[in-house]
């Protein structure tokens, strides 16, 4: 039942950063590839808080690189891709607007239904009979909406045209049904406006079109350690909160506490022993280990970053308590 988006997943490169806008891509990468990123957007349903954030998801260059190296994702220059807005065919443009409109109508409709339902619930306690009548009505309406969706989903969605026409059909069906059921049909001017999350459609999916991807993301020297830990199943997130480079979780951070504060070093990079004391003490103070590691090869000793990943050695450090 869990969906897999079309691969490779396009990662939006926006002004030097890596972003994801597709909820399916976000869920899939988290579930299948242990990539969490950081949500940075405002949730429209609860916009006045900073605890729970929404799309887009910002990926570290390391995360984007791991995914590109695995062939799971590719990097798309999003500003350039949106130049495609200039070359939309008139027909596609109109079609897209009709699709949005039908979605808006359905949204309006569902909201109205929900309102009915809520009213029904509140009336229930007062008047059982009346509530029953409304419920029957609501069920009828629901059946209508369902039929519409089945019609839409059963239509072949292989090409954009087919897909949009099926939606269009759904809309037709819905509006006719609403007439027959006799519920208050929303007037056209009351249709909900929609701000879509992604631009695909109306833009053609970047993977199916031209395939002009940007080169692999440039990564910091700590990338081999990142990739090493990722390959061993750890979920990694930015380390700012603990004053380190990464925080490593043994499972999805939604459910698990992190195990390590991670710092990377080059093999011969001189370090102050005090840094080990700092890291060890900090980690132990928050019930985590301090993980220090890095590749044994320098960048100029190997052909690619991938060759460094295999040479990573790590050390886990905790305060001895003596």
């Amino acid at each position, binding site marked *: 039942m869990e969906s897999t988006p079309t691969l490779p997943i396009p990662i939006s490169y926006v002004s030097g950063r890596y972003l994801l806008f597709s909820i399916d891509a976000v869920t899939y990468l988290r579930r299948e590839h242990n990539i969490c990123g950081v949500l940075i957007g405002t949730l429209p349903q609860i916009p006045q808080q900073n605890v729970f954030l929404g799309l887009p998801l910002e990926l570290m260059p390391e995360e984007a690189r791991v995914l590109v190296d695995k062939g799971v994702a590719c990097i798309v220059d999003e500003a350039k891709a949106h130049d495609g807005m200039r070359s939309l065919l008139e027909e596609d443009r109109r079609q897209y607007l009709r699709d949005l409109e039908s979605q808006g109508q359905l949204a309006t409709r569902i909201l109205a239904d929900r309102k009915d339902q809520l009213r029904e619930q509140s009336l229930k306690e007062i008047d059982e009979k009346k509530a029953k009548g409304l419920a029957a009505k609501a069920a009828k309406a629901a059946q209508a909406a369902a039929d519409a969706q089945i019609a839409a989903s059963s239509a072949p969605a292989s090409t954009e045209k087919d897909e949009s026409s099926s939606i269009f059909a759904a809309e037709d069906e819905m509006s006719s049904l609403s007439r027959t059921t006799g519920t208050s049909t929303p007037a056209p001017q009351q249709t909900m406006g929609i701000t879509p999350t992604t631009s695909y459609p109306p833009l053609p999916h970047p993977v199916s079109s031209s395939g002009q991807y940007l080169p692999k993301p440039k990564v910091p020297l700590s990338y081999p350690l990142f990739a090493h830990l990722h390959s061993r199943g750890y979920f990694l997130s930015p380390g700012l909160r603990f004053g380190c480079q990464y925080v490593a979780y043994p499972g999805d951070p939604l459910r698990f506490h992190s*195990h*390590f504060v991670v710092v990377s070093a080059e093999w011969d990079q*001189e370090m102050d*022993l005090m840094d080990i*004391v700092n890291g*060890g003490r900090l980690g132990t103070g928050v019930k985590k280990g301090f993980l220090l*590691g890095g590749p044994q090869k320098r960048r100029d000793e190997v052909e690619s970053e991938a060759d460094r990943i295999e040479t990573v*050695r790590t*050390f*886990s450090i905790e305060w001895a308590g003596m």
Partner: protein
Amino acid sequence: MTTQQTQLPSLEPSALTKLIESASASGNPLAATTIQILHNLQHQHLWTSLEIHDISTDSIASDAPPTLISGIPPHRIYTHPDEQLYMLEKGIAEDDLRPERLFVIPTAQGQTWSLRRMAAAFDSLAAIEESSVSEEAMSTSESVDSEKAKKLDEYYEKKEMAKETKEWGTRRALLAMTNRGMGGEGTVVYYVVQEGEVKPRQN
């Protein structure tokens, strides 16, 4: 400070200073660190059977500190969380277990350090451990009842396996650091270092 005795003519050198003076006549500046840490283990932390392992001749360890220290602490310093869970389930207390030799990497604040040095120290540690196997195997306590003895046998068997699977942690050592700068009052701090990703203890 401890070695700059001549600058403090009015003060009698401490016992530790004298010890270091006499022992580090070799001229190796790091020897003083080793002696100081050995002294700290022996007298502050009451370790026994202390030994100094010269690893400076190992070609593999040219970057490592020239010596390692090993000894037996009065109490266990480190128990892996899964090992702890096993012991809890089997009703084994730490005191039931025979003492274990633990290795210490002596360092001093201000000394240059790197991943290469850390790795070199661990590599020499591996070499030493392999050459001195099962030194402790004979020292099993006799006073336990047979049921406990059986449990302990199971434990030691499991421990041998865990060494292979690394489920109870990996090769480990204490990284000891003395402070030198800022007056160097002789504090030594100890950190447990294990190779690879070993999950943290929860207490």
